[in-house]
């Protein structure tokens, strides 16, 4: 088991490197750049913008920029000192080859995601400051998804073919089909604008004393968590329904009935455990999906989480910030799948990790 986990962690390294290369390239080839996005002032000349880009190193070819981001080492043609290098003695000029290598410091390989271009704060600190809001929303959504998805799936299977089952299935198809941004806007319009029951967005009411109020927090959570959990509940309902229907067809359930077990023991001991097996495989990705999927919902509901941060960084082309978020989400995804696999081995005795 331990060896398996270690191996999985080692396997994650090339995966993450690949993701970083792909992500970096995609952002760089996207139209517009940070300098253009932040210098709208018409009095700024094209030369000034170019100078700005040169100082940031954004005039360099993409591979060189990638290596800089990854290792913190910059490469420039000729005998020049990189503007971003903190100390002049960390540069070395290779005269015979005609280029200069400078150590800017930082870089992913040195466990440093760098600084946000927009705020000049460390990327990691910015991510960390948004985590509580994201995890709060994510945890509530996850609880809602399992709280409603599992029982609804069970009910649907239990009353298969009946009006109840048809109703649940219809709702679950609708839940998966309706886009969350649309649902979010409709909910805001109905419950906040028309009825005025719930706040339009944000994580708490802004007041002078900023006192913590649980009721206030919950009121802010209701709409975004509802909208965000909709697709998950729908998905899980369908999954559980299919699983239960499959399990009750199995021979071992006939054996259990032939033993004279009551329906409680039959359903909890024999059906539930077998039907839950595939849930272990979706739990890890579900955790990740909830946090990743919050990007749109956080933006609509002005939720101060990582999703919204990522969204605005992307609009601004704040490269280090976007890359930081991408790397964090990727690591989380890999971790999520690993947790799933371990969980699966724990519940299903037939599976041994090696």
């Amino acid at each position, binding site marked *: 088991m331990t060896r398996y986990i270690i191996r999985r962690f080692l396997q994650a390294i090339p995966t993450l490197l690949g993701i970083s290369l792909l992500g970096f390239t995609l952002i760089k080839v996207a139209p517009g750049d940070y300098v253009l996005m932040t210098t709208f002032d018409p009095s700024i000349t094209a030369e000034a913008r170019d100078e700005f880009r040169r100082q940031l190193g954004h005039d360099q070819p993409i591979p060189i920029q990638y290596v800089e981001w990854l290792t913190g080492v910059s490469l420039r043609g000729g005998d020049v000192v990189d503007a971003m290098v903190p100390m002049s003695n960390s540069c070395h000029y290779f005269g015979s080859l005609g280029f200069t290598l400078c150590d800017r410091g930082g870089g992913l390989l040195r466990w440093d995601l760098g600084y946000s271009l927009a705020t000049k704060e460390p990327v990691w600190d910015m991510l960390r400051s948004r985590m509580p809001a994201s995890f709060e929303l994510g945890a509530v959504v996850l609880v809602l998804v399992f709280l409603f998805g599992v029982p609804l799936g069970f009910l649907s299977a239990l009353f298969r073919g009946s009006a109840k089952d048809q109703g649940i299935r219809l709702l679950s198809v609708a839940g998966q089909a309706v886009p969350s941004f649309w649902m979010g806007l409709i909910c805001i319009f109905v419950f906040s604008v028309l009825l005025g029951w719930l706040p339009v967005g944000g994580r708490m009411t802004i007041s002078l004393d900023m006192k913590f109020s649980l009721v206030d927090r919950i009121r802010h959570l209701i709409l975004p968590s509802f909208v965000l959990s909709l697709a998950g509940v729908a998905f899980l309902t369908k999954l559980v329904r299919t699983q239960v229907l499959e399990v009750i067809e*199995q*021979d*071992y359930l*006939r*054996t*259990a*009935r*032939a*033993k*004279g*077990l*009551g329906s409680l*023991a039959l359903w909890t*001991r*024999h059906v539930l*455990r*077998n039907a839950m*097996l595939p849930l272990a495989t979706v739990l890890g990705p579900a955790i990740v999906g909830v946090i990743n999927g919050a990007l749109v919902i956080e933006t609509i509901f002005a939720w101060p989480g990582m999703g919204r941060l990522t969204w605005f960084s992307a609009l601004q082309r704040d490269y280090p910030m976007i890359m930081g978020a991408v790397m964090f989400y990727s690591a989380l995804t890999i971790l999520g799948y690993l947790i799933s696999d371990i969980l699966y081995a724990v*519940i*299903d*005795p*037939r599976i041994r990790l090696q």
Partner: protein
Amino acid sequence: MSKTLLNVRDLETKFFTQDGVVHAVNGISYHVDEGETVAIVGESGSGKSVGVMSLIRLIASPPGKIVNGSVVFDGQELMDLAEEDLRHIRGNRIAMIFQDPMTSLNPVLTIGRQITESLELHMSMNRNQSRERAIELLDLVGIPAAASRLDDYPHQFSGGMRQRVMIAMGLSCNPQLLIADEPTTALDVTIQAQIIDLVDRLRKELGMAIIWITHDLGVVAGMAERVIVMYAGFIIEAATVNDLYAQPHHPYTLGLLRSIPRLDEAHKERLVPIDGLPPDLLDEPSHCPFAPRCEFVIEKCWQENPPLETVADDHLSACWRDISEIRLELDAGLAGGAA
């Protein structure tokens, strides 16, 4: 004369499917005495399994439904029992073991748990008592180092060992009747013999009655006292083992016996298969169900389904033809074939 343990009258089970009504069991009647082994033989789809599962109402409903019949077990009518009361009989006084031991055990529960759950349920044992009893049972069915295997999962056992576990589960509450639904079909021949010996030995030790379902007449010969032959949901012949093998009365039974190889036959004859396929159970049976495949069919067979009638002592058969005529025809046919 031993006491009748189980008395089945006019049992009729149908499945109401999208394609129509499947007439799985069409009014069968038989009885099982205490401590007796009765074999039910027939091809796949002849209603053997549905027939016995109907006894303790294990038919999935819908689509299945027991439409008619009476099952009296130890003086008690099972068809009128509430589900709750029937549960106290299932697994307790009537136990069942199934065909495929690879799929009939729950893969995520230890075999210990699967045995102890019926002990806790029916015998009101606590955890320690039931575990001890489970070890005893595994020992009884010949699983080596039983105590250490209690916490193993089904996938850690071979097919034959799993069937032993199934048998241990079946025997756990000392049932009066054990229904074995083709328990050896999925196993190797050598393992089959072991399982048959085991069940037969346990029957003698524990004094329970057995209904043994099989499509293998060879298996029947060794262990059963009486044989019931089923075809298309009907009992078409019922007799003691010796009578059935020596003097089969129904052309179908005759056909079955002619299609099995025998070691004790002096001259080796060609095996004779029964032509054709079993009938579609979706059709309402109005004539003799075997008529389309029968070599000895007469006009009457197509008009009316023959009732099961006594043809000799302890011997029932459902055929319009007289067995002596059939034998004459058969001999003539064989002579002609040889000439």
